[in-house]
């Protein structure tokens, strides 16, 4: 009975104290911020940056997007790890991609997942020939001192050639989150 009472009291204290989160975890706004920033940078690089020299006559760049590699201490669900890449891909204007002879193809991971559930008919995607991978690495630096915590996040997007591993494009978004106090204070 005493344990039950204690548990109830603890729960109420925790619930009543949940006025504002004191943690440095990524928020939904952060994910949107990262994807929007990178999409804008990639679009700019296709127009005036390292990829601007590509034309409709350039060798095709067939990109298979990979889900985010999470090297932070945060838990990133698969949905977010996929959304962070797909959102960038979807933001690119089709006309610009055609002008640069860039195509996106279904990732192998989805091909395999669909094959297991019989979503694809036999013989599908046999002509699929990706030449590049778009990968994303999420890193963080953590500093904690008593009740203070800071997490600096670095989200690095890159496109690499599958034949050689050459980095043909990369860009990053970097920001910090900080908080002070305990979760239950």
């Amino acid at each position, binding site marked *: 009975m005493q344990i039950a009472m204690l548990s109830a009291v603890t729960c109420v*204290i925790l619930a009543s104290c949940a006025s504002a989160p004191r943690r440095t975890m990524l928020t939904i706004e952060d994910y949107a*911020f990262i994807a929007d920033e990178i999409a804008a940078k990639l679009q700019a690089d296709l127009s005036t940056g390292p990829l601007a020299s590509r034309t409709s006559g350039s060798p095709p760049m067939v990109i298979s997007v990979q889900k985010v590699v999470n090297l932070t201490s945060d838990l990133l669900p698969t949905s977010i790890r996929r959304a962070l890449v797909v959102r960038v891909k979807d933001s690119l204007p089709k006309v610009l991609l055609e002008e640069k002879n860039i195509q996106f193809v279904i990732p*192998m991971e989805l091909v395999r997942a669909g094959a297991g559930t019989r979503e694809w008919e036999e013989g599908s995607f046999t002509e699929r020939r990706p030449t590049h991978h778009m990968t994303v690495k999420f890193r963080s630096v953590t500093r904690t001192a008593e009740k203070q915590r800071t997490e600096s996040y670095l989200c690095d997007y890159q496109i690499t050639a599958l034949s050689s591993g050459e980095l043909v494009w990369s860009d990053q978004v970097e920001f910090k989150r900080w908080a002070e106090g305990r979760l239950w204070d």
Partner: protein
Amino acid sequence: MCAVSRVGGLCVLSFIVGCGAPKGDPGGRVEVHRTTPAERRAPGMVVADMASASDQIAQSLISDLNGIVEKQFRDPSVRAWVVFGAIENKSYTMPRTDFEYIRELVKDKLQKSALWRDNIKFVAQRKAVEQQNREEFDEDDRDPLQREPGREGVERPSKEHMYYLNGKAYGVLRGSTEDYYLSFNLTRASDGEEIFSHSYEMKYTKRDH
């Protein structure tokens, strides 16, 4: 009944106590160059200095690049390949991932330079590329003789034209004082000669020590 009313009473009491002014600060998202209280007190380099170190290393490499290409490259007409090499971490307070973070920042700054891109290409490590290819083309399951033309293996140049970007980090701790020394270098894959090196040093006095 008595126990239930006791629980109820305690809940009301704890709710009142718990609803007092919240302690601490929820913080939020801030610029990388703003140093936070945790960074001022916790062991390890401040993130703004990590960014500053990466700036200096990248700028130094780009400003020396013409000379490096002319004097060090075996054939200046061949674009050299740079691969991420080893990181030796003897900082004692910072994990290796912190230095990988710095190296990623350096890579991005170099990649933004047209001079760098004209002379050098960054490439992923061979094992990583082979893994990507295995995942894409199921090459594990295929007889090597039956593989598609052009997919025989990962393209790599002669070791004469290949360099490793290596990093070293040393820390000296004395009481509340921390001193960090970072050094990044480009080492030729054929003979191990260091063709470029840049170092960065920073000293801190932290309150918690």
